[in-house]
């Protein structure tokens, strides 16, 4: 293969940064992170062109917030039909923007909205899509992507010759673009949705009550509760109510996000004593999520590798466990405290409460 020729062709990329707006017409933090990565990609491919594509009910605040990014074109599909996430309308909007931009590379945040719609658009464009990318940069002159396989158990670096190539980038992997707002000219694409694309109607976002909300993606700390919280303690009894109070108090005081091992979540289905605020949404690990937080504190977790995968993107890790050989701990955490988590957490809560009062 003539790689020099191939590289010559590939560096003339049209890079489309694709984002959807929030209900108020602005861009979310993740979109700025992906714009930052897209700008780096463009800077590394000197002949390339940057195009911005926006989809949403309103686009002007978003366009103005990134007005100084130097895009050659800013395209938008907007209106009430595109205000809420829906596969049919989102896919139609993204397809229209990709075609109008004649994009060879499309970089977009890996949000639930894009995750739902964008792979289908890749099919329509006869393109290729890679999701959950953690890095998309230029290596040896070629756009090169890094992503995980087998539920975060192995990492691969790859490139593709096929175009268009659509990449969904994960949150928390790139610094946000820090440019200044500015005005820009926006080409609004007109798109009439057929009735067949309106068979699905958005109803609402269902969120837990504020005090019940235990998943906080932007939190500094991930608190991982393991099955040990529901097991018999030194006195031969289970202490579910106490465990529930300790964990919820800690979450309230620390504003941490709550994760749980699969075994603890599964107990509720098996009719065992459970912590009622835990659902599968809290589950981390191979069949759960792999959240990104700076710090992680694991308590009462036992575990094999699949559970520990939940730690993969946590930078600083500590664990409290009575078992010094816990799978979450040795070789996986920075510090393991061999202690009773019930005792430690009660005292930790008291300390955090005292600090809060000061």
């Amino acid at each position, binding site marked *: 293969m003539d790689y020099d020729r191939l590289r010559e062709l590939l560096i003339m990329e049209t890079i489309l940064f694709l984002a959807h707006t929030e209900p108020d017409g602005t861009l979310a933090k993740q979109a700025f992170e992906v714009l930052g990565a897209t700008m780096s990609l463009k800077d590394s491919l000197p002949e390339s062109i940057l195009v911005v594509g926006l989809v949403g009910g309103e686009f002007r605040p978003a366009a103005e917030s990134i007005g100084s990014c130097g895009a050659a074109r800013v395209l938008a599909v907007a209106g009430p039909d595109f205000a809420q996430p829906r596969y049919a309308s989102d896919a139609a909007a993204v397809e229209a923007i990709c075609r109008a931009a004649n994009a060879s590379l499309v970089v977009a945040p890996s949000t639930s909205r894009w995750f739902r719609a964008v792979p289908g658009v890749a099919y329509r464009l006869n393109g290729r899509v890679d999701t959950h990318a953690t890095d998309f940069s230029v290596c040896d002159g070629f756009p090169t992507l890094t992503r995980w396989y087998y539920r975060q158990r192995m990492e691969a670096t790859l*490139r593709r010759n096929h175009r268009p190539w659509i990449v969904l980038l994960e949150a928390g992997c790139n610094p946000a673009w820090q440019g200044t707002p500015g005005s820009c000219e926006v080409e609004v694409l007109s798109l009439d949705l057929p009735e067949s694309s309106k068979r699905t109607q958005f109803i609402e976002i269902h969120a837990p009550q504020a005090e019940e909300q235990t998943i906080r993606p932007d939190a500094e700390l991930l608190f991982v509760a393991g099955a040990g919280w529901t097991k018999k303690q030194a006195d031969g009894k289970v202490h579910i109510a106490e465990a529930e109070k300790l964990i919820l108090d800690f979450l309230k005081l620390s504003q941490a996000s709550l994760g749980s091992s699969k075994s603890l979540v599964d107990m509720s289905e098996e009719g065992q004593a459970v912590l009622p605020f835990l659902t599968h949404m809290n589950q981390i690990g191979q069949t759960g999520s792999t959240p990104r937080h700076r710090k992680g504190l694991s308590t009462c977790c036992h575990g*094999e590798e699949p559970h520990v995968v939940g730690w993969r993107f946590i930078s600083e890790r500590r664990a409290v466990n009575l078992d010094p050989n816990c799978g979450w701990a040795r070789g996986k955490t920075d510090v393991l405290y061999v202690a009773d988590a019930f005792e430690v957490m009660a005292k930790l809560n008291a300390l*955090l409460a005292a600090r809060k009062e000061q």
Partner: protein
Amino acid sequence: MHPFQIVVCGSVVPDPLQTLEPISTPAGPALKNELMLPAILDPWAAHALYEAAHLAKKAPGSKLYLVSLGPKAKLQQVMMTVAQKVPFELVALDGPAGGFTESFEVAAALADAIAALPGLERSRLLVFGGWESASRGAGSTLQCIGERLGIVDQFQGVDDLRIQEDGSLLVMERIEGGRHQVSVCMGPPAVLGWATGNLPEPPNNPQIGMANMRLIMPALQKARAVKLGANDAVFLQVSVPRQLRDTKIVKDLASDEIARELAEWITTA
């Protein structure tokens, strides 16, 4: 409730407790001893299957298919267990099921198999699957299947599906921050990529297993061979990340001291 034709797409993945090691082959990356590794039905596809069976039970006359692309021997091994869970009819495709295959190709093979199902009625069709696999984990196969079948009502990260009195589908999809998006679709056809759903894993039922196996064995015998290989991705490196940290074990510290250290650590920027 009108009967549905529910097609669940799902394949086999290595047992999550296995240690995986990548190797290079002329066809691209693969797993060391891939065919020797114990396998299970992909966890999210399994959730989709249980939800589908639950729905089929509530809508008498419904038909449930499991369309699966994987090495025939592995499928047979996994079906010995899965067949005992819920009643379904297997449509097997004999081909690779590894994580480094191209989702577009897999989608094409599965969509063609679905389109070829006898007596398929689009107005009753629900295509289920896991929202991601535990192998490739891309979450892009179902969307491509839907596109190939001309279905534009698609949902991903589904945790709940309710059939309303007018036949419409109320769908709850996982979105960011532990929330759900609630949508209503007028009815089939639709594609639903399931997250964990709400149902527990059904207990093994040998009677269901025996009834299923009567159809599963012939389905495996006549499994069409599918060749994947047009993956244009060039893998530069596939590696298992360095996992070992230098763990400091703190054994004899009083809980007051531990709490103080932790409080300091948590509150330090």
